[in-house]
């Protein structure tokens, strides 16, 4: 019988402790797997979201995030100029504001409000109805439609709030053209969108043509880097950021907390697993010293008994590791649901994202844990004095 078969029989002989060992490794492994998914999840998710919008460059007035810095003057003209560059496929100007839909509630219904100008496809997906036209029309997201029971064709009156200052802008009537899905919507967020001109009207008409960001899609043949260089050359007073640079900035931002916590918990979890498997194996080996000495006396080599212990460790960690994958998946779903309640997180962003590299690292770490945990018990069996142990066990 080979070492693996022998180790299997040793475990099966004591099913309760073997099962508990495997279950313990499964629980720890699930947490370890989740921490590996968490370490890069948010960044991968954000990168995917940025790429799905169809634009790979963002042009802003300053280094501030769109909507948090000053407006770009003459943004519509700038967007048109950018769109004529040979490395650019299309460009749109976007402006962000807030609005209160006036209804029967005393304070109205608070929403975020955006305006768009340019020839490219709008950064939303129409679910029902149609896209905005040239009139006083807007598209609303599903949350707004559900909560206010609005459908395409409905009319509403809103009051925009376009700066941080207190304003008393006049209410403006709009018609709902359609219901749309916005890529950066939060799970409970209410969003409206119209043309940049209509938004400027709602904002008092003083800042016509200004926008927070110009989103640019590069020509596939030219590539993003060439488009970034061309736009930066054309508009040296503005900041041009590719998706990769935006993700880098995001990585350096506040959400590195999750990467740090993931590193700390990965280290703690792995140490915990190694310690406990070592203790389990050591106690188990100590209880079988007489048996192991007898096997050595019967002709089992030192390496053979060492291999038995190692295989036992591999079987416990391997079994637990296999179980940890579905358990970790379920746990990740639960933890993701908890974390996505952080205000301002887009509904399509996830904290735990599967990637093959995470699975590889998980398997490598578990393999290392199996080997390291077996080192001390291996040392015990390798140095076991056969005659003295047998004498002690028999004479006991």
């Amino acid at each position: 019988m080979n070492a693996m078969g022998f180790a299997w029989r040793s475990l099966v002989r004591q099913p309760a402790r073997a099962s508990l060992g495997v279950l313990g490794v499964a629980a720890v492994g699930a947490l370890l797997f989740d921490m590996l998914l968490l370490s890069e999840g948010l960044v991968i998710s954000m990168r995917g979201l940025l790429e799905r919008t169809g634009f790979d460059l963002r042009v802003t007035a300053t280094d501030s995030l769109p909507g948090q810095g000053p407006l770009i003057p003459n943004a519509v003209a700038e967007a048109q100029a950018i769109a004529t560059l040979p490395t650019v496929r299309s460009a749109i100007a976007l402006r962000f504001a807030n609005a209160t839909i006036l209804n029967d509630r005393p304070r109205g219904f608070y929403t975020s409000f955006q305006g768009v100008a340019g020839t490219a496809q709008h950064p939303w997906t129409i679910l029902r109805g149609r896209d905005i036209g040239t009139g006083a029309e807007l598209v609303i997201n599903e949350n707004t439609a559900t909560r206010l029971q609005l459908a395409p064709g409905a009319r509403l009156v809103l009051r925009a709030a376009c700066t941080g200052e207190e304003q008393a802008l006049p209410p403006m009537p709009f018609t709902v053209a359609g219901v749309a899905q916005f890529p950066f919507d939060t799970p409970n967020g209410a969003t409206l969108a119209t043309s940049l001109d209509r938004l400027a009207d709602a904002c008092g008409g003083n800042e016509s043509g200004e926008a927070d960001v110009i989103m640019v899609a590069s020509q596939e043949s030219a590539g993003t880097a060439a488009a970034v260089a061309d736009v930066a050359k054309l508009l040296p007073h503005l900041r041009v950021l590719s998706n990769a640079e935006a993700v880098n900035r995001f990585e350096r931002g506040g959400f590195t907390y999750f990467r740090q916590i993931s590193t700390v918990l990965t280290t703690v979890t792995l140490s915990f697993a190694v310690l406990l498997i070592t203790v389990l194996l050591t106690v188990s080996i100590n209880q079988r010293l007489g048996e192991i000495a007898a096997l050595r006396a019967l002709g089992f080599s030192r390496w053979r008994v060492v291999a038995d212990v190692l295989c036992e460790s591999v079987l416990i960690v391997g079994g637990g590791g296999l179980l940890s994958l579905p358990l970790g998946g379920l746990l990740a779903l639960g933890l993701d649901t908890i974390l996505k309640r952080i205000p301002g997180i887009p509904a399509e962003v996830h904290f735990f994202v599967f990637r093959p590299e995470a699975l590889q690292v998980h398997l490598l770490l578990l393999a290392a844990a199996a080997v390291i945990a077996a080192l001390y018990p291996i040392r015990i069996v390798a140095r076991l004095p056969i005659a003295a142990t047998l004498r002690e066990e028999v004479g006991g």
Partner: protein
Amino acid sequence: MIPRRIAAALASFVAAAATLHAADTLPHVLISRQLSESEHIAVGDVVRLSASADDGAAQQFRVAGVYEPTPDPARLGAVIREVQLHLPDLLTLTREPGMPAGSEFVETINVALVDPADAAAFSRDVQARMPGVSAQPSTGAAESTGPFLVLRRFHLAIAIVTIVASTVFLLALTIMLVDERRAAVGVLRLIGLPIRRVLVQLFIEGVLIACIGSMFGVALSLVSEGLINRFFQWRYDTALVFVRVTPEVAAICVAIAVPLGVSATVVASWALLRRNGLRLARR
């Protein structure tokens, strides 16, 4: 009189420091430690501040001090380059041309109550008397909503998973440890000790081990508290406290760990003690 200060994250920091021997009549500002370090500005330096990037209407200020910004989890990872001005100075600096003095507004008014316990009643009173003004007690506002509550739930979920894993391992270990003593337990049974007497002995042993283990765990967490805080404070250049082992947290940990440890011992022992004494003592 201590003048009211207001944080001003100005759009432009027009001129870096130059220790000018300007008249002492210059208004004073405080700058954040991060701004002081990044721009090499020291106490006594004169800086020029403007509300716009084009250097329009820039004014001179003397740096009266460098301060450590109040730790803010919402700004974790951000380099806080901040200047604090006296409110009248800030209003003068940011006032639009033609706007009469006194017609400006402020975003927030911080109120210190004689009795902080009156915060909720005071907030209700203000909101009733001044429609359109939102008055919120500062304590609890951060903890009851937003990212803090979510992170708390996240950490709680991870703690539950860790407890489950620990319990499973603990059960496996106690089964082994109790099994190791099966011969001794068998002899005790054979010389006439009832099951209950042996179980009580194992129970007391379990309590002692669980208490010592819990105390060791709390001591370990107190040591790691300092290490974790120092690491994250260095990593994010903040005075924010990330881990705090309070007496309540320690009590909860002990309240969970001791019963779990004792239960594991009793469950494992009970499984062993149900066997016949002769069978237990058999080698």
